[in-house]
């Protein structure tokens, strides 16, 4: 069993109440921070911990905090991004639903570090029941003097609000989230200026993922150096992985970064291997936005070294033979999965969720979906496959926000690694469109 930082007490009955949570050692970090530390010291600890943003990009949290501009006469804000909508990712929801106080404790400590007097949790609109859980927990904190004026007699005051989104994936992009929070249409902003300078209501703002914020209390309690000892290299600490798909034990797991992927996928403690004894075909390792990888390339890099669950190891080989840890949404596919259909499905999602602000993404996501729809339903041509790659290249990197990249990567990587399967769909449309038909190897591609 690895070390558990976030989910240690997840199965304690009543952990969602303030009383039990405090009995388990909760809110010590708030006391320690507001009473004995300056805000700079808290930022310094987080910097030392090497904690990296858990939302997907993996940007060092402490560094992000230190970029926050501190102009005179302007408030600063901390916004927690709880708009977890990435297909395949469901870790934040579990954390907020089971231990709401872990997030709130993190919010108070982090807000103190950033000097924020008002903080927001922007939660996905579909998670209305989680919002109620959080609101109840926040009310408990106000009653106990952990929120509001003069927290624990330290002179520091903080107001915490939970705000539901309307259910748009794009509002998980930090600037779109801020626009939405301001009450506008959730369109991502042009950067620069970054939120650290021009964020919510034009004031300096830090936007962090739920898991990153919930990791802060442990860092304050146990010092950043201790946290940095967990993990491998620049990937420190523990990470929640949401595993789904064709595995024996789907669910949310907290792992120490640096765990071998083979152990994670096949040991009974975690995923427990591929279900029904089938073959491991492909995996999407970090939520639907990251490149898809064939099973063998995922377990071992192109050079043959076994991969570890770290940001660096998973991205080894770049986009040619690597992927990304992203938000830790593992979608495992067995050999009965049709990659073309899966890619079409992902593409449909991005088409539906594009905000429509900038042209490559607005038009390109729809185009890719239509081409994939044709290929999947047996109406494709050989040149459609190249066209698909070409369209994805035209979107990638040319958009305002990363949604364009997120839409392009899965398509480009699926064609890169599973081109023969796409060709099979073109060459044998009657076979490929038969119910339950799956490409089973090179012999399928030969002319019958």
């Amino acid at each position, binding site marked *: 069993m690895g070390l558990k930082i976030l989910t240690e007490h997840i199965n304690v009955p009543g952990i969602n109440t303030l009383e039990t949570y405090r009995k388990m050692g909760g809110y010590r970090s708030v006391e320690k921070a507001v009473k004995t530390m300056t805000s700079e010291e808290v930022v310094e600890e987080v910097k030392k911990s090497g904690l990296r943003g858990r939302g997907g990009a993996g940007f060092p949290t402490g560094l992000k905090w230190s970029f926050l501009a501190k102009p005179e006469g302007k408030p600063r804000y901390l916004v927690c991004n709880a708009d977890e909508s990435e297909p395949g990712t469901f870790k934040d929801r579990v954390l907020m639903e089971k231990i709401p106080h872990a997030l709130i404790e993190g919010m108070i400590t982090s807000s103190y570090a950033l000097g924020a007097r008002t903080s927001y949790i922007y939660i996905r609109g579909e998670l209305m029941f989680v919002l109620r859980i959080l609101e109840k927990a926040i009310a408990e904190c106000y009653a106990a003097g952990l929120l509001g004026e003069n927290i624990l007699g330290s002179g520091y005051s903080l107001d915490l609000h939970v705000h539901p989104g309307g259910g748009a994936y794009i509002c998980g992009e930090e600037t779109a989230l801020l626009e939405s929070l301001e009450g506008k249409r959730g369109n991502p902003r042009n950067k620069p200026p970054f939120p650290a300078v021009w964020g919510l209501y034009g004031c300096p703002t830090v936007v962090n993922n739920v898991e990153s914020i919930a990791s802060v209390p442990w860092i304050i309690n146990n010092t950043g150096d201790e946290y940095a000892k967990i993990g491998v290299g620049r990937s420190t600490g523990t990470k929640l992985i949401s595993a789904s798909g064709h595995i024996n034990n789907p669910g949310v797991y907290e792992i120490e970064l640096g765990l071998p992927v083979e152990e994670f996928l096949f040991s009974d403690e975690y995923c427990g291997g591929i279900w029904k004894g089938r073959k491991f075909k492909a995996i999407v390792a970090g939520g639907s936005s990251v490149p898809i990888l064939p099973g063998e390339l995922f377990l071992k890099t192109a050079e043959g070294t076994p991969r570890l669950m770290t940001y660096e190891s998973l991205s080894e080989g770049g986009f040619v033979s690597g992927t990304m840890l992203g938000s830790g949404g593992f979608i495992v596919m067995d050999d009965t999965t049709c990659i073309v259909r899966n890619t079409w499905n992902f593409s449909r999602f991005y088409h539906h*969720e594009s*905000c429509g*602000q900038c*042209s490559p993404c*607005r038009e390109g996501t729809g185009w890719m979906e239509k081409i994939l729809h044709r290929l999947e339903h047996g109406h494709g041509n050989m040149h459609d496959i190249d066209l698909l790659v070409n369209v994805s290249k035209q979107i990638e990197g040319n*958009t305002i926000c990363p949604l364009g990249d997120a839409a392009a990567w899965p398509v480009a990587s699926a064609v890169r690694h599973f081109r023969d399967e796409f060709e099979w769909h073109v060459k044998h449309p009657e076979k490929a469109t038969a119910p339950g038909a799956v490409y089973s190897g090179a012999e399928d591609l030969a002319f019958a």
Partner: protein
Amino acid sequence: MAKITFDGIEVEVEDGTTILNAARKIGGKVVPPAMCYYTPLKGSGGKCRVCLVKVTQGSAKDPRPMPKLVASCVTPVQDGMVVENTLSPQVLEARKGVVEMLLINHPLDCPVCDQAGECDLQNLSYEHGTSGTRYEEERRTFDRQDIGPLIQLHMNRCILCYRCVYTADQITDKRVHGVLGRGDAAEIGTYIENVIDNDFSGNVIDVCPVGALTDKTFRFKNRVWFTKPVDAHRDCPKCSGKVVLWNRGSDVLRVTARKNEYGEVVEFICNECRFEKKEMSDWIIDGPRHIARASVISANHYELPVVNPQIIADLPESTTKELHLIPRPI
């Protein structure tokens, strides 16, 4: 002040200027195209992505290149920045891609579109697009929406530049239209059919780079290249009254605001000037409108005697003054 190198040309601009405006200071062929950015409208830009450029050196202090192509209309310059536009094959390739994206769902109904001849999208695709299309699917269409007796909305032609939204926000006192829906279903519309009706609403026609918003009083009246543009003004209590009249013979077919070389309105005009003053007697004529030689509108349009600029310079001042001769490269 910041000194930047744009396409190998050095230019010095004020801090905070965008790359696009720095390039416009150089002028000529190096200026990136812009479909959504509009200098008079605050907050516009960054959406159409045709002005993408490559920053090969971020600044003198931090010489690293920027990882992605950036939208030149919203990226401020840094001292020592090196930018490539027409010199970079990557930029030209990306721009070609963006133009293709803008066109895949465009109806291409130029033969019946009132904007044809003065359409930014036509110019853009002529300069940067390809001759064929790779799009085999059905084009996206929208239901017709009536937004009043003065302005015609053709949503199918829209490229969602948001200019009309910013115009209504910043020029008029009440905005009733906006962007509804998202993704490729996003459309300009008034929520629950409404009429766009206020004194300055007609300006959305001028800012629209394509034929999505056109003048209903000019609808199907004439092709713009058959009309003769003349500068004119009148004493207007609401606006500057400086306009361009688009005439056929002695009929005023259309009135628009005056635009600069980048298609940007110099002074916004009111609806009275635009829609109601359609008699020559309403206006005082200032002279022929200068139309770029490359434009189709300049066909049969004579504004200056064709004189070698060198000869004008040699003429005595009294003559040039009398004949309104201005040396201008032809």
